[in-house]
Structures are given as structure tokens and as C-alpha cells.
């Protein structure tokens, strides 16, 4: 098979604890150096928390595996310092096309709205993402990466988690205050702690092939129901970087995975799809089944589960790695506040609650897609085909076609951390308490930038003003005072007019009023923003007591 990518080999070093026999003591251990584990480490180093990362392997993901990184994940990767690398190497796309038998019945455009920094989706082989994250993590002084270090036992007693780690040179012991389990769908940590994960296995098999070809397919997602080249089943085509295309064939439950993977059986399928003339080579082939399931809770004392270790979905909708990155985005700031003694352990319960809410949304959406793509009964297939038939001519039919509802962040509207809107304040638009923030173009000291790159990692109070120079002394004092509280809130003035707010409060220019429009803001509107860029609360007028109460609520200090 052809190779467009050479796998890095990360250096194993003999851990000093093997010779010394001493127990290593660290505040946080992350097990698993996949995208989610490395994301967890990078999130915590933004909060100045030292992290030890243990991984049993010494390279990146074999095969492309995860392919699609959604807008919200890209915004999180921006905070971790790899957003530009992923976006410039990846293939960005917005258009998806759906075919039924010979005809196109439906297409969608993921980002109909301009003025967002990141596109709806970027396709990139998982190994590139892991390579960038690993390089970034290796460059951070507070992150220690230990490759070929395998956790073989875990025990939790009181305030300590004790790990036994195996290397080629022997064993050593690590004691940590916090363990983040990012060790994947089969999570050995989960198994060693004897914790359950419930859900169902779908009775279907899929063949995925990474194919290298000099093809002229546009950068779009193409999905076929019952195509002539693969009758009765579905096929998905995605373009990745380096002229690598991902093709995903539904095989049915009865297919023999070992037989299906053999090149002599794979090649005819691809030839039938591409037509005989087009030249291509296989880079990677795999057969997979999948499960939709999650743990009952994601925090167990001082062990915190993230990503596939906590929840798994079908691949339709790209909700795996994308939701895992949102897990660590949600967890990092909460763990920091608990470590610093500025929030109670209960704040970590909110990690579990909020990410279970999101996981359930992902499970519902990916299960619905799976049921549409692979109907389980005759009547279900009849309805599915009826929808596809109606879709060609009727808008309502197109809206029902479900070839995967692509990953979007959860609106955490039911979270106990939110402060609900309070009468007489009335707001229009989507930026409700719990909403993931919308982006907008802003000028910062005359330089073009993006709102989402100006906030995050700590609480912010966004204060909208018609003219930054007109802020009165009381407002300036109230805003400045917020940054001195126990849980600091950084004030940030947003105004359509250029100029600096008094008192040295940072000011962004919203020249075209897009931020004000998306946040339905008027003179004096205040948004309290969480460190993970979700809205915590909002008001039409600034009131220090209300802001402090909302911060207390958002940190379980109320």
C-alpha cells in the first residue's frame, strides 16, 4: 500500500523512578495521548497546572480514523495553539451532497453565515492532528509526555489515585491528586475501576478505505443511499489532505470483516464506484462496527473520564473527537478552580451533568442518523425511501433526509451553572445562558481579529457601549473591581466606535456591529462568559452584585 504519511516515533526515556524506586507524585495525570488526552493536557497548561501524560504507544493514530473537525473543535484548538496548523493543512468544506440511487436529492451548506473565523468543517487525517497536538504539548514546560508507559493498575483511596506503570525497563508507581482517563473506547482505566458503560451495539459493519488518487472531486461530502455501484447499502466519500480520500461502504452484519478487508475484495468495490479508468492506490483499510453508549457519570471521585472512554457514538455526524475536545474544554477550567480551592468538588459534578447532556444529544442524533441510513425493518425502509423520493422536489422531504447531523456544540440551556434571564430584561437571538458563543470580527488596537480569540481561559464580562470613551466613573470602577474578585472576571468593552475605555479596560471595536447584532446587545448590555466560551448570564444593565452572584452560581459557590 502507498504511504503519503510517515509516522513519527516519539522517544521513550527510562523513567528515573525505576532506578530510584521512588514514587512519583504529580497533581494531574492524563492517560492516553490521543486528540482528547493531549487536548486535556494543553487545556490545563493554559491554567498553569503541571500535567503528566502517559501513553502505551509511541506514535500517532494508525490510519486516518477521525476525519472531520467541526467549527467548535477548531475554536477550541485555537485556544490550544494548533488551530492554524490544522486549518492550513486540512481541507475545509461546507457543502454536502446526498444521492439516492442515481440522483442527487439534497445538498446543504454548513456555514450560510459569513463573518466567522473558522469554517463549518475541516477534514484532516487524525494522525496529523495528533502530531500537531503532541508537538505543541512537548513544547510546553508544564507538560511531561511519557511514551511507552502503560498503566497496569489503578486504585483510588481518599484524596489520592495510585497508578502502577509498566515500561520496557520495569515498573514504577505514580501518586496523583487527579486522573483524567482519555484512554479510548475500550478504556482500560474504566475496566480496572470496574465501572459500567451502557448502550447498544449496532448490527452492521462498515468498510473504510483511505484511497490516494489524483481526482477532481470537489472538497465536499458525498453520501449515497442505495447507489448502483453498491446496491442496497450506503456509501460516503470525503476528501482529506494529501489527495487522500476516505470511502466508507456499508457492508451489512453478515459480512466477514477479514475477507472484506483483503485488497482483492476492496479494489473491485472502489473501481465500481470510481469507474474503471481512474487511477488510485489504497493507503489504509479497516472494517468497523460501532456502539452508542455512555457511562452513567463521567466523574468518579478523583477520576475524570473524557472522550470515547466516557461515551461513544456512531461515526455519522463526526461527533466523536469533536465532542471529546468539548469535554476537556468544559473540564479544564473547573478542575483548575477546584485545585486552587476556589470552587468545591461539586463543580466537577457539573462537568459530568453538562457533558452528559451533550453526550445524550450526540447519542440521539447519531442514533437517528444510523436508523435512517440502515433501516431496521421493512416499514422503516419504506419510509426512508419515501423521504428520499420526496426530497428531490419538496423542501420538507429534504429536511428529513438524515445522512448524519454534523457535530455542533450543545446549548447547555438546562445547566445549573446558568443564571436565567431576569425580567424586565428581554433578549432576542441565540446567545441564551448556556449557549456556546458566536464568533464575530473585531478590531483590537487597530488589528483585525476575532471575538473568540479574545476571550476564554477565565471569566469575562463583555460590556457593550455605544462609545468607549463615554463610560462613566462608576461603570469603570465596577468593571475594574470585577477583576479583583476571588474568581476574577476580566472586563472587556465592545463598541462600534474606536477609542479606549477609561481605566485601562481592554476595548474591542465592533466596527460593523456584528457582535452587537449576534448578542442582541444595546448600550450597557453585559454578558458574563465562562472560561470555555459559553454564556453564563446576561443583563441589560451592569450591576456588580448580580455579576458576582452569577459567577458564584457558575462556580458552585452560591
Amino acid at each position, binding site marked *: 500500500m502507498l504511504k503519503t504519511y510517515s509516522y513519527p516515533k516519539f522517544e521513550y526515556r527510562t523513567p528515573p523512578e525505576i532506578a530510584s524506586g521512588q514514587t512519583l507524585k504529580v497533581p494531574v495525570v492524563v492517560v492516553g495521548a490521543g486528540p482528547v488526552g493531549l487536548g486535556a493536557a494543553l487545556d490545563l497548561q493554559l491554567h498553569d497546572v503541571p500535567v503528566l501524560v502517559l501513553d502505551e504507544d509511541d506514535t500517532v493514530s494508525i490510519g486516518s480514523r477521525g476525519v472531520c473537525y467541526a467549527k467548535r473543535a477548531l475554536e477550541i484548538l485555537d485556544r490550544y495553539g494548533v488551530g492554524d496548523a490544522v486549518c492550513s493543512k486540512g481541507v475545509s468544506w461546507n457543502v454536502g451532497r446526498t444521492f439516492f440511487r442515481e440522483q442527487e436529492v439534497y445538498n446543504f451548506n454548513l456555514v450560510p453565515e459569513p463573518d466567522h473565523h473558522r469554517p463549518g468543517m475541516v477534514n484532516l487525517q487524525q494522525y496529523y492532528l495528533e502530531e500537531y497536538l503532541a508537538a505543541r504539548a512537548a513544547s510546553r514546560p508544564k507538560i511531561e509526555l511519557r511514551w511507552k508507559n502503560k498503566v497496569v493498575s489503578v486504585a483510588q483511596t481518599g484524596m489520592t489515585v495510585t497508578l502502577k506503570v509498566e515500561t520496557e525497563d520495569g515498573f514504577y508507581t505514580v501518586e496523583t491528586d487527579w486522573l483524567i482517563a482519555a484512554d479510548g473506547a475500550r478504556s482500560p482505566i474504566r475496566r480496572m475501576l470496574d465501572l459500567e458503560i451502557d448502550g447498544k451495539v449496532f448490527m452492521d459493519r462498515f468498510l473504510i478505505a483511505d484511497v490516494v488518487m489524483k481526482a477532481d472531486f470537489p472538497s465536499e461530502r458525498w453520501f449515497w443511499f442505495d447507489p448502483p455501484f453498491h446496491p442496497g447499502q450506503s456509501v460516503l466519500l470525503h476528501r482529506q489532505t494529501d489527495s487522500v480520500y476516505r470511502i466508507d461502504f456499508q457492508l451489512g452484519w453478515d459480512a466477514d470483516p477479514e475477507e472484506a478487508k483483503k485488497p482483492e475484495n476492496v479494489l473491485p468495490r472502489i473501481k465500481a464506484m470510481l469507474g474503471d479508468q481512474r487511477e488510485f492506490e489504497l493507503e489504509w483499510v479497516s472494517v468497523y462496527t460501532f456502539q452508542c453508549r455512555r457511562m452513567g457519570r463521567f466523574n468518579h471521585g478523583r477520576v475524570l473520564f473524557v472522550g470515547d472512554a466516557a461515551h461513544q457514538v456512531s461515526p455519522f455526524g463526526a461527533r466523536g473527537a469533536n465532542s471529546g475536545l468539548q469535554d476537556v474544554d468544559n473540564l479544564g477550567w473547573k478542575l483548575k478552580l477546584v485545585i486552587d480551592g476556589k470552587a468545591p468538588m461539586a463543580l466537577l459534578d457539573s462537568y459530568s451533568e453538562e457533558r452528559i447532556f451533550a453526550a445524550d444529544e450526540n447519542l440521539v442524533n447519531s442514533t437517528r442518523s444510523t436508523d435512517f441510513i440502515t433501516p431496521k*425493518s*421493512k*416499514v422503516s425502509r419504506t*419510509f426512508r425511501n419515501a423521504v428520499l423520493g420526496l426530497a428531490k422536489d419538496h*423542501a*420538507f422531504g429534504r*429536511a428529513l433526509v438524515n445522512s448524519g*447531523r454534523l457535530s455542533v456544540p450543545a446549548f447547555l440551556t438546562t445547566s445549573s451553572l446558568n443564571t436565567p434571564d431576569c425580567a424586565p430584561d428581554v433578549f432576542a437571538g441565540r446567545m441564551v445562558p448556556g*449557549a456556546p458563543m458566536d464568533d464575530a470580527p473585531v478590531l483590537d488596537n487597530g488589528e483585525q481579529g476575532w471575538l473568540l480569540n479574545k476571550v476564554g481561559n477565565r471569566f469575562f464580562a463583555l460590556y457593550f457601549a455605544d462609545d468607549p470613551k463615554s463610560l462613566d466613573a462608576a461603570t469603570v470602577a465596577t468593571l475594574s473591581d470585577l477583576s479583583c474578585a476571588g474568581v476574577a472576571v476580566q472586563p472587556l468593552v465592545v463598541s462600534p466606535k474606536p477609542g479606549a475605555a477609561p481605566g485601562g479596560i481592554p476595548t474591542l471595536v465592533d466596527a460593523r456591529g456584528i457582535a452587537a447584532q449576534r448578542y442582541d446587545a444595546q448600550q450597557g448590555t453585559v454578558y458574563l462568559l465562562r472560561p470555555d466560551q459559553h454564556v453564563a448570564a446576561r443583563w441589560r444593565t451592569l450591576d456588580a452584585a448580580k455579576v458576582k452572584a452569577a459567577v458564584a452560581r457558575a462556580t458552585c459557590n452560591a
Partner: protein
Amino acid sequence: MALNLNPNFAEAGKRYFNAYAPGDDFYEMLIGAHRDLSDEQSELLNARLILVLANHIGDLGTLREALDVAREGV
């Protein structure tokens, strides 16, 4: 009453942040209603459902239009 062929699903009091959500909610209810039924039972359910909905719509002009849309392409 003209036949509405644009997306039209919604639930009172519920806020949707993704346009596809109410349609997907309905589709899941529809397929769920058939769970554990035999093919004949499913056919009967569909017939009963059509009759109930047709009576709710009531307007024969609309129903005639709907029948034409459904028949086309079968």
C-alpha cells in the same frame, strides 16, 4: 388552505437551535410507533394514521393536492 410542502414541524414551548431537530423528533416518533409490529400491523397503523390526519386537515382541496404529490413518483 394551500398544501404546505416546506418544513413545518415544531412543538409548542420548545426552542430549537438546529433546524433539523423538530423534523428528526417527528421521524423518530413515527418509526418508534412501528416498533415490534409485524408488516401487516404496520400497514394497518399507517392506514389508520392517514385517516386520522386526513380528518384533522379536513379540507378536501388540500387532501386532493396531498394525494397527487404522494402518488407522483410511486
